């Protein structure tokens, strides 16, 4: 097994050094608290409902890179693939709070759930109201009747985009929660892995795949997928991924959707666009129209090669928040 090659200093300092570089790359828009993994916007208006996102590092630019206009007010970042500790979350929440409560938005993983819940309990004791939205978009992780067993993957981007807009425009935390839940409930994703990413600290890939193998449905930390198989053409893989997505919600003729093709890290934009071509052929056949398309690397898994496809069904309200211009280090839209 070849040791992955990375441009690092001390691997155990990778996350703190990364966060330092990230704050600098934000050109003065965000700052870092004493609890190192806690990053917050410098210009949060009084009386704003706060949006706090977070999770393990290693998925950059999500989560730490999505703090900004009409996006998150802060992020609580853990070590690579490890949820942030309660104290980091609590510190970030207190720093972004402007009297209207804090919406927690993160991917649905045992570690994140427990640490954010503990933080919520501590904040409740201090009289700070929190609401929790867990993104559960990965249809490969569990059947529909077990939604709470589903992982949060690239759908995080749509959830942050919509919740960020809602938190910027709506005065009531219950309203922000409602809009964010609507987005979360209307998105479905499915991923495929082509080659593994590796952990800086161990220097080891999180899984192994044969030179001619792919794993359909694999998660963003290398969690097992639904099928390990031989590499097949792009169109065939896309067909395998789109079918379960459409079936699950289900998406039906006449639906208007936002489409996200998320690069897990080392795949090429050329591959992503060839996949997009096929996705559009399939959606055309089903009579589903695409309102906006996003192709890029927003939720990565270190240098993992592979990608995921996400569809979010839109209504007028979700379109409104999708169309709001947004600005951050890792995601900017017009």
């Amino acid at each position, binding site marked *: 097994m070849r040791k992955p090659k990375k441009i690092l200093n001390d691997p155990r300092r990778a996350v703190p050094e990364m966060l330092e570089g990230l704050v600098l790359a934000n050109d003065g828009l965000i700052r870092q608290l004493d609890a190192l993994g806690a990053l917050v916007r410098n210009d949060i208006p009084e009386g704003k409902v706060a949006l706090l996102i977070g999770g*393990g590092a290693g998925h950059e630019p999500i989560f730490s890179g999505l703090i900004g206009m009409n996006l998150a007010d802060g992020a609580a970042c*853990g*070590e*690579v*693939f*490890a*949820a*942030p*500790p*309660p*104290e980091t979350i609590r510190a970030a929440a207190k720093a972004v709070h402007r009297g209207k409560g804090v919406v927690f938005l993160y991917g649905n*993983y*045992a*570690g994140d759930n*427990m*640490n954010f*819940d*503990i933080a919520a309990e501590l904040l409740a004791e201090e009289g700070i109201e929190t609401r929790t939205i867990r993104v559960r978009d990965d249809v*490969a*992780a*569990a059947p529909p009747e077990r939604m709470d*067993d589903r*992982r949060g993957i690239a759908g995080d981007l749509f959830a942050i985009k919509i919740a960020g807009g809602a938190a910027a425009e709506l005065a009531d935390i219950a309203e922000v929660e409602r809009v964010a839940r609507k987005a979360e409930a209307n998105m479905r994703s499915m991923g495929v892995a082509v080659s593994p990413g590796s*952990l800086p*600290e*161990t220097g*080891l890939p*999180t*899984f192994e795949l044969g030179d001619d193998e792919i794993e359909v449905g694999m*998660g963003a*930390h*290398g*969690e*097992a*997928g639904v099928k390990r198989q031989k590499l097949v053409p792009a169109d065939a893989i896309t067909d395998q991924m789109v079918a379960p997505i459409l079936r699950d919600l289900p998406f039906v003729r006449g639906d208007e959707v936002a489409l996200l093709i998320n690069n897990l890290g080392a795949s090429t934009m050329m591959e992503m666009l060839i996949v997009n071509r096929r996705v559009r052929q399939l959606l055309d056949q089903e009579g589903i129209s695409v309102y906006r398309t996003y192709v890029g690397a927003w939720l990565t898994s270190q240098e993992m090669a592979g990608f995921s496809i996400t569809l979010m069904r839109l209504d007028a309200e979700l379109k409104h928040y999708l169309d709001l211009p947004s600005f951050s280090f890792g995601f900017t839209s017009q």
Partner: protein
Amino acid sequence: MDGTGVKAMMAAVARAVIANVDQLSEADRATGDGDHGVGMRRGFEAVLEALEGLDAATPEQVMKAAGSAIMARGGGASGAIFGTLFRGGAKALEGRDRLDGDGFAAFLSAAVEAVKKRGGAAEGQKTMIDALAPAARASAVHASFAEAIAKAAEAAEQGVEATRNMIAATGKARSLGERSLGHIDPGALSVSIILNAMRDCAAKT
């Protein structure tokens, strides 16, 4: 064993966990995301720091300080779970200036309850609970501290082996389903390493 003894014991536990970082990460590579060892190392390095700043403490204070350190610095599922283990267990030691066999049994069963409450998992779901719960039961024998720990450690080792035949129902290993069979649960292995280190300390005293 008095507070000073418990403090020395927890330092030995921390060194044992840190020494096994690679074995623990490797176990997690098979079923999860490969970071359990490095996460436990973060937590128990914080334990060593916390213990240094702690003098003349009761057993409860030592365990609570250890749990709080893990909770504050471990991160991931294991940070919350193992932080909860020691913080939850510590509550059962309230008012005890010495840790004896019964006290230790109380510590473990309180720890099990706290972990179940926090993570919502039950026995048989291929988690650290499958090492911790049997250990708690085995220690409830109204025996000496050393005997109680020895029984707990032995039960935990069997518990680790038992996780081989379980299908993961929580955490990152869940999606493996059937394919998780044959692999041990990394968190269960951590519980066993912790209890073995305690046993060796107790034996020495």
